[in-house]
């Protein structure tokens, strides 16, 4: 006699014994297996789907962070850039602040011409520029695709043309141009954004573009971005607009979030269907034990204790499904990510395999919590049916 077992609360004691005995009845055993299997399938599929989306989100975030500033302050015309820079660099966690000037123009070489985004930078290529971050800008820094198209090599001279012409007393509009040597060529990779983006010295950009779109790019740790942005919004003068990387890529992050939510809801339907099977399985067990439930009633088991018994029994069944599905899902996600088993065409996507990433708080806990709540609600539905049965009704043959 195991005394510890008999010291358990009566509903738990009954649930554990019924869980064991239900294996002996073929119909109940089949339904219980379908229920636990369904919940396991749902939880496993949910974990894999959420892990894949989290993996893509992480990869995309890394990509976004490597190709755009973490925080930037856009300056209205006339605003003193040095005052703004001083305020920005005085904030804790800010590593550096660089003044940039962005605008449109063309570059021409050897009879070819192409529209480009001109980016005037102070002294060196910003950290978020792919491939050539930190290199001195003592000429023009061009993407490899453009270099290939124009047949450019380091040291070649390129003409940068501004859309703002110079007016002369002779009423002719002369295009404003500057000739710059190619300082370096960077790999734009698969980013269309960088295909036509070139970096030029700030003073050249100012001469070509005047004061359009002047901004301060701020480098700081990613986790400090929201706090520093909030602080800067409070202390910077009017006309300085603080924009974070999330706001710069708002549409992308919203799409990812929406996709994750919709995927969660869609795959969670498997768990919802399995929960219905749980109700059926418990209802069948209650029907097959109707007389025994009546006897328990005569012995003084309260309706609430009877309900708790079946909630616990449902919890045990669902727990088995959650444990199996959770383990299989987590292990599968780890293996698929570790060994890069699902390949993607490198030319199409920014990664060449489907990345899986599972975080306990934001990913795993909502899945487990939602499954536990839904299955317990299902078990409660079945248990309430048992608790409404009076002992006399239950024992009537």
């Amino acid at each position: 006699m195991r005394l510890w077992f008999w010291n358990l609360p009566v509903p738990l004691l009954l649930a554990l014994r019924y869980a064991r005995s239900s294996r002996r009845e073929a119909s109940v055993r089949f339904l219980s297996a379908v229920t636990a299997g369904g919940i396991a399938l749902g939880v496993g599929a949910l974990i894999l789907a959420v892990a894949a989306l989290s993996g893509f989100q992480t990869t995309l975030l890394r990509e976004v962070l490597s190709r755009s500033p973490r925080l930037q302050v856009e300056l209205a015309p006339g605003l003193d850039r040095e005052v703004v820079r001083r305020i920005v660099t005085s904030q804790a966690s800010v590593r550096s602040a660089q003044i940039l000037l962005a605008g449109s123009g063309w570059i021409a070489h050897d009879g070819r011409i192409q529209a480009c985004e001109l980016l005037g930078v102070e002294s060196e290529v910003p950290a978020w520029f792919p491939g050539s971050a930190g290199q001195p800008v003592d000429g023009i820094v061009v993407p490899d695709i453009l270099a290939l198209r124009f047949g450019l090599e380091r040291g070649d001279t390129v003409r940068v043309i501004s859309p703002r012409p110079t007016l002369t007393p002779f009423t002719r509009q002369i295009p404003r141009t500057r000739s710059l040597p190619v300082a370096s060529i960077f790999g734009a990779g698969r980013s269309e954004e960088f295909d036509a983006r070139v970096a030029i010295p700030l003073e050249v950009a100012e001469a070509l573009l005047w004061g359009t779109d002047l901004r301060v790019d701020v480098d700081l740790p990613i986790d400090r971005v929201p706090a520093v942005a909030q602080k800067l919004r409070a202390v910077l003068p009017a006309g300085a607009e603080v924009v974070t990387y999330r706001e710069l890529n708002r549409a992308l992050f919203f799409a990812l979030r929406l996709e994750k939510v919709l995927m969660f809801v869609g795959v969670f339907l498997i768990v919802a269907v399995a929960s219905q099977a749980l109700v059926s399985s418990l209802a069948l067990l209650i029907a097959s034990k109707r007389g025994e439930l009546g006897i328990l009633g005569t012995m003084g088991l309260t309706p609430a204790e009877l309900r708790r018994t079946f909630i616990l029994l449902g919890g045990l069944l669902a727990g088995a499904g959650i444990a199996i599905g959770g383990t299989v899902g987590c292990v599968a996600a780890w293996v698929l990510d570790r060994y890069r088993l699902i390949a993607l065409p490198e030319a199409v996507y920014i990664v060449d395999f489907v990345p899986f990433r599972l975080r306990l708080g934001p990913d795993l806990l909502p899945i487990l919590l939602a499954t536990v709540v839904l299955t317990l609600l299902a078990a409660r539905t079945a248990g309430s049916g048992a608790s409404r049965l009076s002992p006399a009704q239950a024992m009537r043959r």
Partner: protein
Amino acid sequence: MSVTVRARGLRKTYRDGQLQVEVLKGVDLELLSGELVAIVGPSGSGKTTLLHLLGALDRPDQGTVEIGGVDLRTLGGAQLARFRNRTLGFVFQFHQLLPDFTALENVMIPGRIAGHSAREVLDRARALLAEVGLEQRAEHFPSQLSGGEQQRVAICRALALEPPLLLADEPTGNLDPATGRRALDLLIELQERRGMTGLLATHNPEVANRCAKVWRLEDGLLLP
């Protein structure tokens, strides 16, 4: 320990769609403390229904039941369950034992429902099974016991918490005559030894004659 049971004007009708069957048509009774009374009547006369009402397993459409001065109408579902646990011991013809529990465990369950410790209910269950000569069968499941042994275990379970009132519904109805006689002897002996109030429903005159009083239930009314 025993209690007095009083019932006044008990009426109970079962409805099944358009069909209505009035089983009890105003039953009055008073069962004195320590008495053992038999209710006899043909099958379908309402003996089980009356026992269910007196045992707080069902509620009458009309009338009152008072056990040990407690009016059952004043008790809610959970209170009624606790009342059954403390006050009543049941022995039935069918559904005697829980098949997923051994004989010993079946006798332990009322004590655990009452909140007694596992050690306490285990010792008590062992003593009871020994009292009815089943100590060697304690670890057997009901399916491994004979009908007579099952009924003896059911009697032990009914007496596990020493309830003041014992209700038995055809306790020998499912047993062969010899086994039934032995089970009845045991039931009466234990009831007398503990001085419990007892009510026994049966259609068997031989069983009824073993009781101090016999009441007849006919056409929904109780005749002395």
